[in-house]
């Protein structure tokens, strides 16, 4: 067993410090050391996307990253997106447009979608589907997930136009 590493992260705007083994995966560090249980473990092989977080501004699968690689990074999880009293547009949209059923994939979906819309604020349906390729849902058949994201994009864009 190797020595523990001293890890410093900023998670959802808060500084966190803890000891971890180099081989600890980021998802387990978040869930078990920091009690951040929004990102879920769905597959462990980097395909399902339930573990998706934003790291230094980019979507990553936290099950395929050592916490050692994330040392010093700024991380946003679903808990850092909106708040229960003031939902993010995407969160409101997923709720209203029924973009979820069992909800297990939802934190990863929404976390990824926030980045997708930053990368491409006016995506076509095709672009949404391509951009969400790394997030699997077994319940919905994706129809309402895509609808939710497009609706959110539309709302964000109208708000921008109204502000201008």
């Amino acid at each position, binding site marked *: *067993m*190797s*020595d523990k*590493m001293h890890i410093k992260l900023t998670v959802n705007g808060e500084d966190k410090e803890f000891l971890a*083994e*180099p*081989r600890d*995966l980021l998802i387990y560090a978040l869930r078990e050391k920091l009690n951040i249980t929004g990102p879920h473990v769905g597959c*462990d*092989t*980097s*395909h399902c*996307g339930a573990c*998706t977080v934003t790291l230094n501004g*980019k*979507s*990553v*699968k936290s099950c*395929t*990253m*050592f916490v*050692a*690689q994330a*040392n010093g990074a700024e991380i946003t999880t679903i808990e850092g997106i909106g708040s229960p009293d003031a939902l993010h547009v995407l969160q409101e949209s997923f709720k209203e447009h029924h973009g979820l059923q069992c909800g297990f994939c939802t934190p990863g979906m929404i976390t*990824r979608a926030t*980045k*997708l819309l930053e990368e491409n604020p006016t995506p076509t349906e095709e672009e949404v589907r391509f*951009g969400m*390729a*790394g997030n699997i849902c077994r319940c919905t058949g994706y129809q309402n997930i895509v609808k939710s994201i497009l609706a959110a994009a539309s709302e964000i864009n109208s708000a921008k136009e109204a502000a201008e």
Partner: protein
Amino acid sequence: MYSFEVERPTSVADAAAALGKDEAQALGGGQTLIPTLKQRLASPSVLVSLAGIADIKGVSVDGGTVTIGGGTTHGVVAAEAGAYPALAALAGNIGDPAVRNRGTIGGSLANNDPSACYPSAALASGATIVTNSREIAADDYFQGLFETALEEGEIVISVKFPIPEAASYQKFEQPASRFALVGVYVAKFADGVRVAVTGASEGGVYRWSEAEAALSGNFSADALDGLTVSGDDMISDLHGSGDYRAHLVKVMTKRAVAAAS
């Protein structure tokens, strides 16, 4: 997975020194290595993360060559290698968005997975792999399944791609992993056509020389009509038989020729 130490050098020199240790392994984005370690198919004692080395990141264009730092992610290549559209498109279709934010070209080429996309781009483009100790031509670099010309501890610093007149990469995806069941990269240069096939052969990425000869004379899909591809020596696994792959090689090559621009 087995336990290990992690080092995070910020210079190539420090990385090379760290890799000189016993059972040290380079870590790029980890998109291949981490799943491998999880399955305990490898057990390095030290992982040397290359992600902190700024010198090996970035895309630059100079005349007819695109140079990509070994530590550049697929997402960045897709966004910035527009001078070589087929290459940018290949990078933009590896895995999925989150994977593209981590996986690097250096990692992909150093690993030389027989189903990975980049090896076919490098081989078809006649690229040069620049390491911390020498330059290796693509034709000499790929040496079989997961085998390359790299020595222990040698790091891919950058890859130089000559920009062809026209090129295209056509990937028939293994639908679950999105790796290439068969991927064909066709590049047309002034002095001839190169065709590199990934995903298909038990020997890893290879050049289909009969196709190259036919296309160098006549760059059109029907130039390939008379050619056959044998299913022997093709990978036969859960995802497809050797014969199916052989069949797809020809189909995807034709598509690449038709799509080359």
